[in-house]
Structure formats: C-alpha cells, structure tokens
C-alpha cells in the first residue's frame, strides 16, 4: 500500500519544527524513525496533509543523567539505547524491554520518543516509562512542560500532547539501591505486538520488601500500573506473595478483546506475566547493590 499524497517539510532545528506545528496544527504529523507512522501512512490509517520529518533536527538524540534522573532525547534510536552502557546500568528495566521492541531492523530506525508519542497500548517503551513513573518533556512555542507518564497516555494512540507540541525528551528515574527489575511479554512471534506484557520493579530495604510496582501493556487501551507498598509479611521470599498480587491485578483490570486474544485470555496472560515478573524482580532485587 502507498500513502496518500502529502506535503513534506524537513526542519533542522526545534524552533523550526515548533513553527511548523503552530502553522499546521493537527493537519501535520511528526515523522521520527517512522517505524509506527510509516506503516500507518502506508496502510492509510492516517492521511495527513503535511508530514514534518524531524529526523535531522539537532539536539534531540541526547543522553544525560543528573541527580537520579536519566534524560533521553526524543530521537535516541532504540538500537543506540540498547548499546549505551550508561543507559543499560541506569535503566535496567528499559534495557530488559528493548529487545522485545520490534526487530533489530526496526530498532535501527525507531526512536524512544517516537514510541512514546505514538502510544500504542501494547508498546514496551511507554510501559516502562509509566511503570517507573517517568515524565515526558514537551515543547511548543507557548513554552515547555513535562507530563507524568501515567497521565500522558490517554487511550489508544492518544496522548496529552497538544497539536502544537512535540516530545523533546523522556525523563526516567534511575534505578536505586535494592531495586530489582523484570520484563516479560507474550506475542504471536518475537518482535510482534505484545498481546500482553508485564514490567516489574521490586524494592528491598534492610532485608525487607518495601515496594512492588507492576505495569501491564496490551491489556487495556494504555499502560496500567499497580503500586504495592504494604505487605502482610516482610520477608521478600514469601512464596505466596507473587500469586496474590497477580490475582489482585488480574481481577482489577478490564482487558481488551480483539483478533489476537479474548478478554478472558488476556486476563489469564496478565495474571501469569505479573506473577512471573514479580518473582523475577524480587529475585533481582535480592542481588541488587
């Protein structure tokens, strides 16, 4: 399939991009790596009159860590993120999830910010950002703001980004001492859209479990996150705990039903993936520095 005819603009700076967005508003789409937008254009699921190619905009493929927060520029490529040693050690959850994002041939173009802005409910990068309670940095000619990831995703392919705004960076809380992480996914084939995926962070302080966060993708129309910080028993190796949390989660969600899986099937997958990631994250936290 071929896209409908569109006008094409290729800015080189953020300021030029914001001017174009102000001028064209919701008639324009931003093209970054194109690994989600490209298929949607080709299948004519979107028919924009203007495509703004931000692939050559300077200063958006950055990486930096300050005071416990890692900032990744919107245009950082997924494959570059996987190869970045500082990122891998600061953001273990993201580095566990990235191998599930498409294939090497798509990760070589796909960007972190593009996946966030696209907001596919089954996508791994939005799941990680929401699970870690990170933030999305946005910029428009009106100014800058940042939105918590758990408020950014509003529904299927829908975000809090305004038509004149662009995602410029993602802000990730760096992994802390005693924190462990796990990521699991079920798809029809590796690299395909997740039918369900689970991300988990567990925190152990002074030998006691003090926090578990479980995020799910592919289950509802946006990432869903559960925080647990009170446990009936403190030992991190309580064998009943992962199953109990997973059961609670699976009863609380309202799973989607589509061609890939029924709601009942998704609920079962969510329960199993949540339990597995809780077990693995606690185990990881037990050996964490």
């Amino acid at each position, binding site marked *: *399939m*071929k*896209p*409908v*005819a*569109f*006008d*094409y*603009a*290729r*800015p*080189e*700076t953020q300021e*030029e991009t914001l001017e*174009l967005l102000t001028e064209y508003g919701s008639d324009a789409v931003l*093209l970054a790596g*194109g*690994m989600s937008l*490209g*298929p949607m*254009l*080709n*299948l004519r699921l979107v028919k924009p*009159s203007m*495509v703004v*190619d931000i*692939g050559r905009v300077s200063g958006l493929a950055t990486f930096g860590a300050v005071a416990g927060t890692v900032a990744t520029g919107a245009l950082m490529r997924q*494959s570059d993120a996987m190869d970045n040693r500082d990122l891998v050690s600061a953001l273990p959850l993201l580095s566990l999830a990235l*191998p599930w994002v*498409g*294939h*090497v*041939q*798509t990760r*070589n*173009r796909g960007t972190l910010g593009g996946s966030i802005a696209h907001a596919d409910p089954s996508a791994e990068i939005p799941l990680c950002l929401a699970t870690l309670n990170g933030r999305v940095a946005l910029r428009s000619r009106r100014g800058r703001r940042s939105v918590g990831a758990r408020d950014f995703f509003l529904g299927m392919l829908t975000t809090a980004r305004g038509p004149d705004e662009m995602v410029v960076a993602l802000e990730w809380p760096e992994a802390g001492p005693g924190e462990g992480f796990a990521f699991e996914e079920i798809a029809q*084939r*590796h*690299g395909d859209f997740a039918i369900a995926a689970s991300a988990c962070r567990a925190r152990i302080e002074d030998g006691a479990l003090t926090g578990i966060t479980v995020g799910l993708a592919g289950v509802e129309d946006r990432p869903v996150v559960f925080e647990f910080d009170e446990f009936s028993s403190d030992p991190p190796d309580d064998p009943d705990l992962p199953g109990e949390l997973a059961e609670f989660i699976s009863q609380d969600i309202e799973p989607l039903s589509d061609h890939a899986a029924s709601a009942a099937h998704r609920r079962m997958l969510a329960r199993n993936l949540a339990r597995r990631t809780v077990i693995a994250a606690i185990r990881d936290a037990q050996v964490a520095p």
Partner: protein
Amino acid sequence: MSVLHRKGGERHRVELTVNGKARVGHAEPRMLLSDFLRHELGCYGVHVGCEHGVCGACTIIRDGSAQRSCTQYAVQADGAEIRTVEGLSNGQGLTALQAAFKRHHALQCGFCTAGILMSASAFLVSHDNPTEAEIREMLSGHLCRCTDYHGMVQAILEVSKSGLEDE
C-alpha cells in the same frame, strides 16, 4: 538553518549513494524508499512484501545498519549511503555468505533472501563470533515461508567461524 519543503504530488530530485555509486532519481514525498530503489534506480533486488515493516523482504543497509526500506520515504533518505543485494558481490561470483546460503539450502523460492542477506551482512560486521541465539534473534525480523531458517542459521554460523565474510 532552514526548512526544506517538498510539495506533495510533485516529483523532487533525490540523490543517494547506492552500492558505492552516486545515483539520482525523482520522487514524490510519499514514494517509499523501496519503490524508489526499484523503479527509479532499477535495484530490483529490493523485494517488496508487506509494505508495512513486518516481513523484512525490503531490508537494505542504510548508513551501515540494516533497515526496512518500505517504512521510510525516498525524500527522507536524500544523501544516504545505501547498499542493496546487488552490491554484495563484485560480479565475479558469490560472496562467502551467498555461497554458504547456497550450500546449506538456506533458501527455496528466494523472495525473502535478498533482505536476509543484507541483515546477515550487517550483522556479521558487528558480530565476530555470534551464537545461534543471536543469529535467530536477528533473523526474527524476516519472514521466510519456504524454509525453517535452519539452513540460514547454519550458513551464517559457518561464515562467522571461517572468517570468510569479505566485509
């Protein structure tokens, strides 16, 4: 700094380096890179399967990395360095990788093969001594409906062990 504008419905000049040669063609903004390589530049080794990034048949090497050519547009790639399957061999016979594919029956109909050879070529540059699992992970970005991938895995393993890949 300035914004490049390209009007929809009109053809614009696009310059690429393809298999080491400077090439020029014309493309509407909506023209896929895969179609541009085939129909403007005659690189019919770029196969077109699904046209939405799933099957991997159109995989090329752009600026050193294996990428889909159906989910990018020719105007986006202006100035890029592209390698297609036509550029693998120097015309004097098969490369070590191509010969290993033949020896291990790593293809049947051959439709997916052009893209897989490009992924495997890029992969071998960055992986001196790959494991079977790494090879299968790389191949997961390609659909082959004839073979079971086993011959491809064996061929790539053999080339990596022999150090014959002429990259």
